[in-house]
């Protein structure tokens, strides 16, 4: 995938991202790292087009993320808390989108939903609403939802942060298996072992700046003091 950030800044109450620049090509699994509050969620949301930056430009796979409304149709996003619609079954969470916004018939939509839920081993859970399944199952359903829309890129913002270690493993395994689908991934996670396995590029952030970037090897031999300190903390 191609990602290009040009002088991207973002302000909520104060500026949280400062003039970020980044050019990436040919990597298909990019990990954003950094302590909590460093701006990872903000950046991944900007890259996915969920929010617009205060200033700067963003291009992903030649889409002008900020101005091209069509871009969103090519994006999958997995939130930290599954963020499924709580009143709909896992299946309906997916088929509603396909039926109402992608022009599928209800039968087709249900079929696609079932196929993707099965892919994430949720065969016997799909008629339950989110509160009646485990956190790991809900998060996998949320991944299935992202996949069902047949996106080019899947963004995952700390998909396991709200899960215990066993469920974390379950979800990470599921993500790992998705690699074979040939999609591109951008993810935020604190699970360093997973980053080393899964990602082929790492971007380390602190206080709204990109401090260090490179292949996952930089995690074993950090150059900056910030990344050194971070690696001590997560270990």
């Amino acid at each position: 995938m191609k990602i290009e950030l040009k002088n991207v800044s973002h302000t909520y109450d104060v500026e949280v991202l400062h003039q970020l620049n980044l050019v990436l090509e040919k990597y298909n699994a990019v990990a954003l790292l950094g302590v909590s509050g460093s701006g990872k969620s903000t950046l991944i949301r900007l890259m996915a087009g969920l929010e617009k930056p205060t200033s700067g430009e963003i291009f992903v796979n030649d889409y002008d993320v900020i101005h091209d409304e069509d871009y969103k149709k090519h994006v999958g996003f997995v939130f930290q808390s599954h963020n499924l619609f709580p009143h709909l079954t896992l299946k309906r969470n997916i088929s509603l989108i396909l039926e109402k916004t992608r022009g599928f018939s209800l039968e087709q939509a249900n079929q696609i939903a079932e196929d993707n839920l099965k892919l994430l081993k949720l065969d016997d859970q799909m008629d339950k609403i989110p509160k009646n399944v485990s956190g790991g199952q809900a998060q996998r359903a949320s991944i299935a939802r992202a996949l069902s829309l047949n996106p080019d890129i899947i963004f995952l913002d700390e998909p396991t942060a709200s899960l215990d270690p066993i469920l974390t493993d379950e979800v990470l395994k599921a993500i790992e298996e998705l690699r074979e689908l040939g999609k591109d991934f951008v993810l935020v996670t604190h699970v360093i072992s997973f980053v080393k396995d899964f990602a082929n590029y790492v971007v380390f952030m602190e206080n709204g700046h990109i401090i260090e970037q490179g292949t996952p090897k930089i995690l074993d031999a950090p150059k900056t003091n910030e990344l050194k300190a971070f690696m001590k903390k997560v270990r």
Partner: protein
Amino acid sequence: MKTNKNQLRRVLDSKPVSYIFALGVFVLFAILIVSRQLRPFQLSAIEPYWGNIQSGFLNTIWVSFIALVGSLVLGFIFYLLTQSKLKFFKAFTDVFTEIIYGTPLLVMIMIMAFVVGPALGTFNRTATGTLGLIIYITPYMTNIFKSTFGSISEEQYMAMDLFGFSGYQRYRYIIIPQVVRMLMPPLMNNFSLIIKGSALLNVITYRELFYEITQMTNNNFRFVEGFLLMWGLYLIITIPLSQFTKYIDRRYGL
């Protein structure tokens, strides 16, 4: 022998049996209270008034229903005002809420029926008194709208946006269905509040349950029978309502 004892203990300590015992305590208390009255308990003394009591009962339900719908509509309008960009509207609802929270329902009904109504040229105390009840409940309704709409997270809106739902689709398929489910339990709690509050409408001689039964006791002095019956009739509405609310919440809660 020992297992038998354990079994018995488990049955006695089970949930249904505990509730039956608890209910029994209150029934015993009622029987004790009735048996200690000087005059023998005679439900038949009520018979001549039965028609009036029935119509009072129905009037209680009717006026409560009107107040429910009225306060729901008014509460929703006030909720919309709190969401307005104009600061005045939010200030207005805040001041209104403070005033209502500080006012006893009885005072509210009196003020509406005997002060505000006449000033506006109406002496229809049933209407103005009921309006008092509606106004009194309105801030509670506004609150439940606030908390239900507020509980749809920012991220859900982001997701709706990402998936490309139109404005209509968002309300039709995602927002309203959630709001309705979350609204039902607190709404029914408020309904219970209204039913209990409606008893105060007797002061404006609205012929609801409380009014009819006190009319009877003033005539035949059957206070024990009358008030116990009144109590029972209120509970017959409110307890099933609260049980139903709990069921709805279990079954459809999010």
